[in-house]
């Protein structure tokens, strides 16, 4: 009996892989695989797009435009992240339940704030953007709020998890020395989670840049907007220029956050 159970444990991952593989195979049947899938002349377009990859438009005008829109994208991302951090801080502290005393209060407050965070991050930032544009019109704030809400939800949830996982001994020591809840938060909890939350926030910042680039889709400026305009004009060479700028931006932030993480986590 014992041995059978052990071997079942070992086969679990194979069972799961099998289920996933079957689900994928089943999903393939929903598409009718024939030449109808591709546009007439779709392959020619693909070839043009592919060729344009090697000859991006590097004229001065386009480069300046690309630089400007890179800054727009970056600034929306940075502004959105700064709001998201504020949201994450307040909701995260509330959802971790470190500020309330008594088990009963904790059981009431924690699920309430956790579900709020869950709702914020369940809806994709672009959907938020669309809802904001529909209600407050085309303004940079639509992009910033749309970034801040889901990112605040993700960061807040991670922040709450981290606060809950903090070792309890130093906190008890602080409380025994007469620290209030606020002082325990400030001198006990926050210093202990500082490194990990910073490195996670940097990683999300990289994602925020990518998200802010696609905000354009609902009509807010930035790199994605230029990509869309060039695609509509069928200027594939310009498309690749803007895409390369986006890639460079993402890689730069990625490298920065890698360096920062390496130094923080040691």
């Amino acid at each position, binding site marked *: 009996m014992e041995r059978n159970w052990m071997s079942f444990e070992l086969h*679990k*991952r194979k069972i*799961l*892989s099998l289920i*996933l593989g079957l*689900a*994928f195979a*089943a*999903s*393939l049947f*929903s*598409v009718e695989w024939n030449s*109808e*899938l*591709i*546009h007439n002349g*779709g*392959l020619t*377009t*693909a070839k043009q*797009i592919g060729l344009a990859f090697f000859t991006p438009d590097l004229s001065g005008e386009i480069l300046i435009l690309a630089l400007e829109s890179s*800054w727009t994208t*970056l*600034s*929306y991302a*940075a*502004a959105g*992240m*700064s709001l998201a951090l504020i949201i994450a801080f307040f909701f995260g502290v509330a959802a971790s339940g470190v500020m309330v005393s008594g088990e009963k209060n904790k059981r009431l407050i924690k699920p309430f704030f956790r579900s709020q965070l869950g709702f914020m991050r*369940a*809806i*994709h930032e*672009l*959907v938020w953007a*669309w809802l904001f544009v*529909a*209600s*407050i*019109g085309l*303004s*940079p*704030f639509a992009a910033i709020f749309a970034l801040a809400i889901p990112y605040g939800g993700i960061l807040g949830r991670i922040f709450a998890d981290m606060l809950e996982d903090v070792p309890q001994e130093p906190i008890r020591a602080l409380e025994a020395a007469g620290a209030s809840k606020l002082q325990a938060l400030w001198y006990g909890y926050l210093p202990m989670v500082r490194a990990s939350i910073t490195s996670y926030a940097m990683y999300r910042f990289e994602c925020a840049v*990518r998200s802010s*680039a*696609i905000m354009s*889709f609902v009509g807010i400026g930035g790199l*994605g907007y230029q*990509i869309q305009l060039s*695609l509509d004009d069928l200027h594939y060479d310009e*498309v690749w220029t803007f*895409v390369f700028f*986006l*890639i460079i931006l*993402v*890689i730069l932030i990625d490298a*920065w956050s890698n360096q*920062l993480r390496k*130094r*923080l986590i*040691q």
Partner: protein
Amino acid sequence: MKKRKLNFVTASVYALILLAAGSWLSIFTVENANLSTLFSQSNLMYASKFFNGLFGIGEENPAFFNAESWGNAWALTMETLVMSIMATGFATICALLTVVPAARNVADGSLTLVKKWHGRISFGFIRGGYIFSRAVPELVWAMIIIFIFKPGILPGAIALALHNFGILGKLCAEVIEDLDSRPIRNLASSGAGRVQILLYGVLPAALPRFLTYILYRWEVIMRTTIVVGFVGAGGLGQQFKLSMSFFHYTDITLLLFFYLILVFAADFISEKARYFIK
């Protein structure tokens, strides 16, 4: 060494604060954004009209009391689910095919004790491909792909797969880099070939982590399916865009409802599945 470490971190923090401040400044000055105009009378009216629309106030036949719309939304939900599974599958297959040469310890021969002349080249090439494919957002991939394929769930799945291929590849390559190299070296020194090493050395040790990452990406893909739908790649997103353009706001409430169910269900399933293999 310690001093330099502190310096880099503090400098980064200052730079980030400066960046945030500069961003807000440029948003307020260059783009002339103004918080007060945001809450003007007309905007308030638009917003209230929009939210009334969402809840179907003053609407004669709101979509959420209409059996046909429910059926429609359900069909679209299934389509979206299929699209996400297909995208995860494509991304996984491509990532698994390329992941072995993309691991640093395979490329420099420290894992398999075999150093090939093309190890470095294929490592750089594949890693470059990963960076490229994940730096471009799904939506941009979808915009490009839709020029080639007809609207439907296939272009959406391909666009999602292209973006997630880079992410999965990077994550899985890191798993291989962190593997315990002793059993694999043992296999290699007793004469196992490349395929044998992959099947008996790498996969058994790395499979649980691979599965965790695949499930995690599936959650994220589920959330993003709606976005690639916006540019005509099928599923809930496409209908969302159409309803938005026709000002059928009650439809949007219904679609968002189904979308949320889908996202929460994916989270739940993937969490249970991850727990199952633990």
